[in-house]
């Protein structure tokens, strides 16, 4: 079932057109990757979905059009982990997690804190530590944990590998995959590191100057050497 659908979405920062025409879909329970060079519009695609950039075209979640800013997107069930460790550095680990559940009104937040702790035991042990004192990898994990606290319909990950050691990156994606398999978490991930993104995703889109240049199952894109050379750079 289609969860997210972008139909001819364009976006701009002031006079600079960052997205020209992007159409893509994400089905429930899928991990979809968005790849491409710097400036291709990967980050802007995510920002258009979460409403942090002015956009045109239609974006539908569950068949309902998404309108308004990021507050509205968060309430609709979109958790956006922005580039560069989206944590509140002056707040503690536990406070960061609790903020993830900000839009929720149910009484199961506490249980979800325990659920997160089962994936990341250190977050419970070091709950009182300021997020700014964590390592880069830990902050990225915390941003993921915080996103999960909102019980998202759709998780948006922006360049999670940025500035992290390869081992930490693999650990991060292993966790994302586990969440996808165990809990049916739907993920749209933007990545510079095409190799790892194609290994965890089932489908991928390749952007080029604000348009979808190419799309298909990740395994096919990975197998096609011409595609790899000209678009993915490995």
């Amino acid at each position, binding site marked *: 079932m289609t969860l997210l659908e972008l139909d001819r979405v364009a976006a701009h920062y002031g006079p600079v057109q960052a997205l020209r025409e992007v159409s893509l879909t994400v089905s429930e329970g899928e991990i979809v990757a968005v790849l491409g060079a710097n400036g291709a519009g990967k980050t802007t695609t995510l920002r258009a979905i*979460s409403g*942090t950039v002015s956009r045109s075209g239609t974006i539908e979640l569950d068949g309902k059009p998404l309108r308004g*800013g*990021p*507050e509205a997107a*968060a*309430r609709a069930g979109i958790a*956006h982990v*922005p580039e*560069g*460790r*989206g*944590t*509140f*550095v*002056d*707040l503690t680990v536990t*406070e960061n997690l*609790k*903020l*993830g559940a*900000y*839009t929720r009104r149910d009484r199961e937040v506490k249980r979800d804190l325990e659920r997160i702790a089962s994936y990341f035991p250190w977050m419970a042990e070091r709950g009182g530590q300021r997020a*700014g004192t964590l390592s*880069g990898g830990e*902050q990225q994990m915390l941003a993921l944990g*915080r996103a999960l606290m*909102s019980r998202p319909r759709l998780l948006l990950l922006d360049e999670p590998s940025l*500035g992290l050691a390869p081992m930490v990156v693999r650990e991060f994606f292993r966790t994302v995959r586990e969440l996808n398999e165990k809990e049916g978490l739907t993920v749209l991930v933007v990545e510079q590191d095409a190799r790892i993104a194609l290994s965890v995703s089932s489908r991928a889109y390749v952007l080029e100057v604000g348009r979808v240049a190419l799309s298909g199952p990740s395994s096919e894109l990975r197998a096609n050497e011409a595609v790899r050379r000209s678009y993915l750079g490995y």
Partner: protein
Amino acid sequence: MLGAFDTAYFAQQVVSGLASGGVYALLALALVIIHRSTGVINFAQGEMATFSAYICWALVTSHGWSYWPALVATLVLSFVGGVGIHRVVIRPVERGSVLRIVIVTIGLLIAINGFIIWQWSGEPQQLQSPFGTDIVTIGDVAVSEHDIGTIAVALGIVVLLWLFFQFTKVGLALRATAVNPEEARLVGVRVTWMLALGWGLAATLGAVAGVLTAPIVGLDPNMMVAVLIYAFAAAVLGGIDSPAGAVVGGLLLGLMLNMLTFFSQYRAFDWFSEELRLPIALLIILVVLLVRPSGLFGHAHVKRV
């Protein structure tokens, strides 16, 4: 040469120093709350407090209210007024340069001051103290009820605010907004309302400072000018982004100035007279900004990239 150490006089100076320090702390907290959320020093903070004190006075004097209901109404109106100021005056310029917002707060200062004089004239008025101004003696220490009450109120408010920021969802959202508004929006916090709430809180804190100051110095359109300078000094001393720092800075400043008064009976400090209180506060601002800009409690922000 040295007289006997006058313990009773010393204790009196401590109490009255903590009382004025408590007022500085409240106004400094208001400055810190706004600085953390909107990123500017609200130069109108003192005038807003004066205006609140006038409302309380007008309700009692012209509308025949008794004091306590008038005080509660004043606090509520101040909160609403603070939210309103943010929505109407600050929000339109919020995305501009800091200088624009600063100029708007200076404009607000002048506008409120002018409005007070236009509405109630510049004549000094008398606003009663919520606690009375009788002197009570504890042992051989004579202190005023107003000072004791002021200290209690200041401490009580600090504790309440701390509980609010630390243990409520809205308090957490306010702190998140102060740390990183972009991120806060992504988790669903309605940031513009959080900023407005911050202004409302600051206006209410100012109102408390105003109704506690008026009984001492007389209700007057310029009564908070000096107090605002002390509050600046307190906030800078404690760290302009640290609520705890504002409180400690305020109490420390009040205490320190009164200690100067006390020790001016001795030769080493006989140069001190009351006229030097404000210049010393300004000197503190200058020295802290030069030597330790983050203040006692502020921390330099380290950003990982």
